[in-house]
């Protein structure tokens, strides 16, 4: 039993306060726009111009050929070519280089004897970039290996035709250039919505409690559901508007392809908005003031973002944390949003594995929030 008239007036009051609060306005419009740009470019894991030093103790024609062939990609930025072993280690220590290639003396002889070794040193402190760059280096070295063998065989006057070899060729679907922005930008959209809405919802009731207006409100005949919906509907609408703005930017400005249906995306976002407002409401209901709500929100937001697969693949998580990540709405939204944007995944394929669990979580969080909320002062 909800009075539509009272709900309408409650919503109007919330909007009035919202638009009067310049800070809230800025937070909900400017921050998403600026953050989308910053995060999408910053959360870039592409390896380009990785500062690299080379310590070539062989200094022969062969070693220089090898170097030229493996470092020709623009992945590497050679900051030192013929440095000593000490300088190579120093460069890694100081961070002037992320990657070092060590060619021992006798390399050219070993190549001829068929058993040459080189060493790649990687700065593990920035593991994402370094790993990507070193894998490029390994690939190039393997290619050089094949080239050298073929040349040797040819020089012996034999045909290279029947030479046994396996070549694996990788083709990347959906994101052929492996542009990390394509992967990150839709995720950034999910994360911004989550941070903004959970914060709004967490503060909603806590703020009224802190200002004493909650005490006044519980003295009136307003029903708990009217109060809660009245507070959350405006935030939901603002969230939907933000989703539209961020989505338009991601496609229009950042050039990320939206291959799937806009409708599927919209449905997923609406369910996600519900789930997030529900979990925020739960935080608000258990908090006595805004500070408590904010600290709770702070401690719960980070795991949500980190465990959801926003940055790290969930498959690498320890089993317990993997289970935890299954009750995080972000986990499902990320899969949906990336699927819809890059793969064009349709509603039918998303429903059972992703949309349904998201809906269930939304219902659970919302119900818990409503149940935990008490229209009382004790």
């Amino acid at each position: 039993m909800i009075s539509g008239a009272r709900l309408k007036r409650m919503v109007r009051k919330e909007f009035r306060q919202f638009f009067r609060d310049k800070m809230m306005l800025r937070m909900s419009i400017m921050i998403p726009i600026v953050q989308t740009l910053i995060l999408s470019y910053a959360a870039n894991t592409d390896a380009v111009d990785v500062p690299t030093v080379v310590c070539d103790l062989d200094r022969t024609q062969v070693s220089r050929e090898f170097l030229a062939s493996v470092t020709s990609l623009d992945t590497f930025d050679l900051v030192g070519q013929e440095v000593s072993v000490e300088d190579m280690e120093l460069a890694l220590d100081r961070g002037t280089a992320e990657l070092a290639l060590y060619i021992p003396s006798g390399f050219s002889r070993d190549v001829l004897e068929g058993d040459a070794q080189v060493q790649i040193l990687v700065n593990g402190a920035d593991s994402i970039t370094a790993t990507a760059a070193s894998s490029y280096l390994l690939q190039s070295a393997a290619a050089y290996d094949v080239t050298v063998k073929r040349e040797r065989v040819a020089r012996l006057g034999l045909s290279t035709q029947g030479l046994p070899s396996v070549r694996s060729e990788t083709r990347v679907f959906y994101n052929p250039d492996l542009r990390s922005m394509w992967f990150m930008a839709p995720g950034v959209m999910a994360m911004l919505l989550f941070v903004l809405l959970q914060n709004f919802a967490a503060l909603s009731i806590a703020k009224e409690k802190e200002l004493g207006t909650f005490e006044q409100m519980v003295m009136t005949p307003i029903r708990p559901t009217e109060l809660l919906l009245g507070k959350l509907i405006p935030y939901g609408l603002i969230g939907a508007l933000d989703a539209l703005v961020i989505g338009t930017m991601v496609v229009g400005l950042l050039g990320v392809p939206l291959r799937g249906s806009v409708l599927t995306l919209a449905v997923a976002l609406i369910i996600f908005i519900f789930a997030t407002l529900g979990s925020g409401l739960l935080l608000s209901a258990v908090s006595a003031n805004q500070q408590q709500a904010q600290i709770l929100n702070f401690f719960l937001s980070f795991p949500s973002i980190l465990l959801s697969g926003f940055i790290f693949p969930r498959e690498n998580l320890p089993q317990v944390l993997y289970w935890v990540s299954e009750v995080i709405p972000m986990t499902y939204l990320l899969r949906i949003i990336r699927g819809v944007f890059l793969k064009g995944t349709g509603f039918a394929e998303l429903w059972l594995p992703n949309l349904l669990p998201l809906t269930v979580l939304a219902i659970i969080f919302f119900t818990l929030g409503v149940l935990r909320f008490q229209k009382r002062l004790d």
Partner: protein
Amino acid sequence: MSGDDLAVRTEDLSKRFGETVAVDGVSLEIPVGDVFGLIGPDGAGKTTFMRLISGVMRADSGQAMIAGEDVIADPEAVKQRMGYLSQAFSLYADLSIEENIDFCGDLYLMPRDEVQRMKEEMLELTDLLRFRKRLVGRLSGGMKQKVGLICALINRPQVLILDEPTTGVDPISRRDFWRIISQLPEQGVTVVLCSPYMDEAARCRHLAMISRGRILAEGTPEEMRQKVAGTVLEVTADDVRAASRALSDLSSVRRVTPFGDALHVQVEEGREAVSEVRRALGEAGVDEDEIHEMVPSLEDAFMDIVTRGDRVA
């Protein structure tokens, strides 16, 4: 008194917070049209009692009826017919006076034209009409509390509950405030307030004195004054502090309370008390200007009742 004539009735109402008993078996009957004051020191349990009878806090035991509704059984039933003004600031600072009042009317689903009419009338009466568009956050404490009172009355309640309504309010706003309250009984509205101030208590028709969660005395302000044991003498002296020292050890003196440049000295009944006081002051070398018997003030009554009550407990 039959149940229909009662605006509020409680029976053995109790509430504890951990070890502390905030309200301890309170039974009160407040007739319709009364202005009832619950008077007691800070921490006596006044606010808790107000919250219990409003149904926003659950009692541990006991009964509470307000405007004929059982608050314990159905706390929401009475809210449409009840008004409440809390001690803490409880309006939206970022909304104007008018917007706050309108929103309160909305919460009770009051017809807009009626809210409009009452708003005009009460803003006029409280001298706030010219500030109607001002944000409540930019008002003085007294003005805020007057707006709060208008909000609490906007649903035309049968019972108005005021929790320390004029704490921290300037005298002029307090006068405006009471101008509205004193009109309410003739409209059939029952006012229940709590306050630590005696001048506010003096404006009530009935009082109950509460300390440590228990009602120690009940009655009209006049009856309260008569409850003071013995006689109260007003002693005016040049050196009030020396006089106070000289008198507080006398066996016939029950209490010495300073009031500005005078002392209220509560003594045992009888003529000889006056001469004993005079002699004690003479021995202490204090020049007394005047000693005369006085009608005990409410404050004397309050001090006497609370001290005696606490001694028993």
